[in-house]
C-alpha cells in the first residue's frame, strides 16, 4: 500500500492546491495549483487550470496556466495547452495545440514567479466556481459569435446553426473550454478544426 499511485479520476474535481512527492495522474479536473517533485500526467479528457511546478510534465489533455517543469515537458498529439512554459526540454508532437511562450533557459526565474503566486482561492470551501479565471483564459474565448463568421483562420465553411452555437453558449462561463461538449461556442480556431474533422 505504500506506493499506491495518485490518480484523480475522471469524475473528480479538485479546486485548491495539490502538493506532493510522487507521480500524479489526472483524468479529471484540477483548478488551482499543482506542485510536485515528480511527474504530472494530464491524460486525454482531463483538464487542469492551474499553475504547475513539477519535474516532468506529460500533457495529453487540456492545461491552462503557467507551467514549469525542471526536467521535461511533453505535449502529446491530443494536448490543448494555453500558458507560458519553462523547461530545459520541451517536446511537442504533431497535432498538439499550444499558445504561450516557451522558455528553455532560465527555469529558476520562472519557477520563482510561479511559486510566489498565491492560489486564487483563500477559503478552502467557498465559491470554487466563481473563482476568477486566470488572465490568459479570456483571449481564446472570443472565437465565435452566433451569426458572425469565425476568426479569419477558420472560414465559415460550415454555417453555425443556432442550435449548436446557442446551446452551450450563455450557460457556460467565458473560459477555456473544459469538456468536449462545451467546445461549440467558444472554441479557438485550432480546436474547431479538430471538431470539423469528426
Amino acid at each position: 500500500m505504500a506506493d499506491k499511485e495518485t490518480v484523480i479520476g475522471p469524475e473528480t474535481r479538485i479546486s485548491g492546491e495539490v502538493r506532493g512527492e510522487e507521480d500524479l495522474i489526472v483524468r479529471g479536473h484540477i483548478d488551482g495549483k499543482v506542485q510536485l517533485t515528480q511527474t504530472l500526467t494530464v491524460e486525454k479528457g482531463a483538464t487542469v487550470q492551474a499553475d504547475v511546478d513539477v519535474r516532468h510534465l506529460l500533457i495529453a489533455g487540456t492545461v491552462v496556466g503557467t507551467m514549469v517543469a525542471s526536467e521535461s515537458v511533453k505535449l502529446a498529439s491530443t494536448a490543448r495547452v494555453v500558458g507560458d512554459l519553462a523547461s530545459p526540454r520541451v517536446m511537442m508532437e504533431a497535432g498538439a495545440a499550444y499558445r504561450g511562450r516557451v522558455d528553455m533557459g532560465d527555469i529558476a526565474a520562472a519557477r520563482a514567479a510561479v511559486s510566489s503566486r498565491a492560489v486564487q482561492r483563500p477559503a478552502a470551501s467557498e465559491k470554487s466556481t466563481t473563482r476568477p479565471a486566470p488572465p490568459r483564459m479570456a483571449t481564446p474565448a472570443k472565437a465565435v459569435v452566433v451569426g458572425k463568421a469565425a476568426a479569419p483562420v477558420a472560414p465559415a465553411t460550415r454555417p453555425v446553426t443556432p442550435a449548436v452555437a446557442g446551446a452551450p453558449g450563455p450557460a457556460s462561463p467565458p473560459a477555456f473550454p473544459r469538456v468536449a461538449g462545451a467546445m461549440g461556442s467558444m472554441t479557438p480556431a485550432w480546436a474547431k478544426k479538430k471538431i470539423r474533422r469528426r
Partner: protein
Amino acid sequence: MANTVIGSSIVIDGEITGEEPLTILGTVKGKISVAQSLAVEAGATVEADVEAQTVTVSGRLTGNVVARERLELKPESKMVGDAKSPRIVIADGAGFKGNVDMDV
C-alpha cells in the same frame, strides 16, 4: 479499480468533489464532497468537512462528517468532529470525539 487515489506524499489544500470512490492516503485540508465512498486509509490525515455516501476511516479525520449511508471508524482510527449518518460503526480501538446524530 479505485478511481481516485490521493497518495501518501500528496497534500491537497482545497476542495475535492466527485462522483466516484475516493481513497486518501495522504493529507487533505478543506472540504470533501463525493457521491460515493470515501476511504481515509491508515496514515492519512484529513482536516475537512466531509460528505459522502459511505465513509470509512482508518487514519485520522478532523471535521464534520455526513455519511448518507454509513460511517465506519476502524480500529486505530482517530476522529474529531460531529458525525451524522443513519448507520455508524465504531470498532474497538477507534478514537472518537464529537456528536453523533443518527436521525432518531
